[in-house]
């Protein structure tokens, strides 16, 4: 019983970290058509900034978010203006070209990160990361708990933004009818730029959250990217809630599967689930 509760708790916590990575990725994809393979590399950089904020200035990474979020928002917007727009001028459907383009960006960022911070793996050490709390019979580490809080705030903020604000609604319109949206007077360029900026900012926040759970290094972006892809495909492009649920679902699936089958096969359960879901719903679990 304890193990079951623990598995559910762990699964949900890990799932939340996939979710927070996925939502920004999915948002940018939906609004601009860009599949940003450098999304998780941006998250890695966010993790480093948080880490060094603490190591050099004694500033808690959560406080550092005050700088990271606007900074990354600007980077994202710049990324859209500098790289995505030229691409969009060339090809109408940017999907696959954007994967390769952003992989290039990720490679550059990875190497630069290595040069700046070495390839050494890092783990965040704060007062709360070495605490743990009981949840029923299970226990939760302070790091994962804080990461969960960040993730939930990011997801909630995104949901609110998309429901309540004009730009948020414009983004949703862009997702559904990219061509129709332009006709209804939506400033596509502005909306796309903001969407990319928000994508980057959430990546930064996700990176800080993940740094509280995982050991990270410049190469961490690749495994993180795989899980991001996975939950976004499962959840559907442009659905914040769908991706969040898919993340939780993925975390739970692996965690619960490892209770009954050898741990090494647990990830496979996830891959097989993905393929099964695609067989039934080729555009994702929660996509209408």
């Amino acid at each position, binding site marked *: 019983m304890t193990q079951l509760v623990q598995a559910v708790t762990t699964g949900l916590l890990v799932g939340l970290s996939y979710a927070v990575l996925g939502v920004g990725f999915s948002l940018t994809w939906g609004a601009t058509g860009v*599949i940003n393979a450098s999304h998780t590399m941006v998250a890695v950089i966010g993790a480093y900034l948080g880490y060094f904020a603490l190591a050099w200035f004694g500033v808690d990474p959560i406080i550092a978010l005050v700088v990271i979020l606007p900074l990354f928002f600007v980077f994202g917007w710049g990324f859209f203006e500098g790289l995505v727009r030229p691409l969009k001028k060339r090809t109408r459907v940017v999907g696959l070209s954007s994967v390769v383009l952003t992989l290039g960006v990720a490679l550059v960022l990875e190497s630069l990160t290595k040069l700046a911070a070495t390839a050494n793996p890092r783990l965040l050490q704060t007062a709360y990361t070495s605490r743990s709390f009981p949840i029923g019979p299970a226990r939760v580490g302070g790091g994962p708990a804080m990461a969960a809080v960040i993730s939930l705030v990011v997801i909630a903020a995104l949901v609110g933004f998309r429901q309540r604000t004009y730009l948020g609604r414009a983004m949703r319109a862009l997702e559904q009818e990219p061509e129709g949206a332009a006709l209804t007077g939506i400033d596509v360029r502005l909306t796309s730029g903001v969407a990319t900026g928000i994508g980057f900012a959430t990546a930064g926040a996700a990176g800080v959250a993940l740094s509280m759970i995982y050991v990270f290094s410049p190469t961490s972006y690749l495994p993180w990217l795989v899980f991001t892809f996975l939950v976004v495909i499962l959840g559907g492009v442009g659905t914040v809630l769908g991706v969040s649920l898919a993340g939780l679902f993925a975390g739970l699936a692996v965690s619960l599967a490892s209770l009954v089958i050898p741990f090494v096969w647990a990830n496979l359960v996830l891959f097989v689930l993905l393929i099964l879901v695609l067989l039934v719903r080729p555009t994702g679990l929660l996509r209408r």
Partner: protein
Amino acid sequence: MRPRGRSERTIWLMLAAAGVGLLAVPFTGMSIYLMSVAFVVMFHAAAAVSWNILGGYAGYESFGHSAFIGVGAYTTALLLSHQGLSPLLTAPVGALLAAAVAVAVGYPCLRLRGPYFALVTLVVSLAVSVVVVNLPGLNVASGVFVSRPAASPVMSRFILYEAMAVILIVAVAVARAVERSRFGVALAAIREDEEVAATQGVPTTRFKLVAFVVSAALTGLAGGIFSWSRGFLDPGDMFSVNLSVLIVLFALFGGRRSWVGPLLGALVVTLAREFLFIVIGEDAAQILFGVLLVVVILFMPNGLIAAAPRLLRNGARR
């Protein structure tokens, strides 16, 4: 796609001559090191030309082709280390198994288009690697020792070179035959507009699967010989995502309309990488490589072939 006449036969003859030339190069006293560099270039070229049958002709860009390299590689490596069978004999078995994997995953995956297909193939390649690495009783995770092809170092490199050259020639021949066939026209139609292709009578589901399987089998064949050069297979390297991405890049860089593009892309990128790596080191080379990806996508979306002078393009598409 003009009527097959003398010119068509001439081109095949020219290609055959080039193939014979490729096979003959080592007899000119090529050094061991050059043979090993050429081996890697030919491996990359064979994989890229094979990838292109699905990714270029049919427009289904797989980001998981290392799965087939891995399946081919582990098939020959395990048969060599457990049964003592030469990869020259077992590489086709690896190709068959790669084809079988393609059949198994192709049906669900090929229902997806564009980026969805790309991402799901990436995930599938990871799933395949988990399965292969944990196959019960084979102890793949401990690594597999692959004995060298021959007792003498020169002979070893020679055999590897010739085997990979044959695979490259086969891959090019198949790719070119596909291009010139009704099947190739159907794949092009699928790439341009799959629904239209279907309403034109093209059995899209079947043809996509066939293209996937042919592509996977050829890739598996190349992987089967590639592993023979490695000495020791660490489960991490054969199924690497980097390799999958590299294959896509070769084709993208060269151009995807004909077999010439991926071949050229593999040649140029592999040698450039090797050169940059030697001259400026891995980290700087990696940065330049990333910039190259960005430049290719932004400034030469149709690859080197299209960007090169018109003459070259005509030569390639004739």
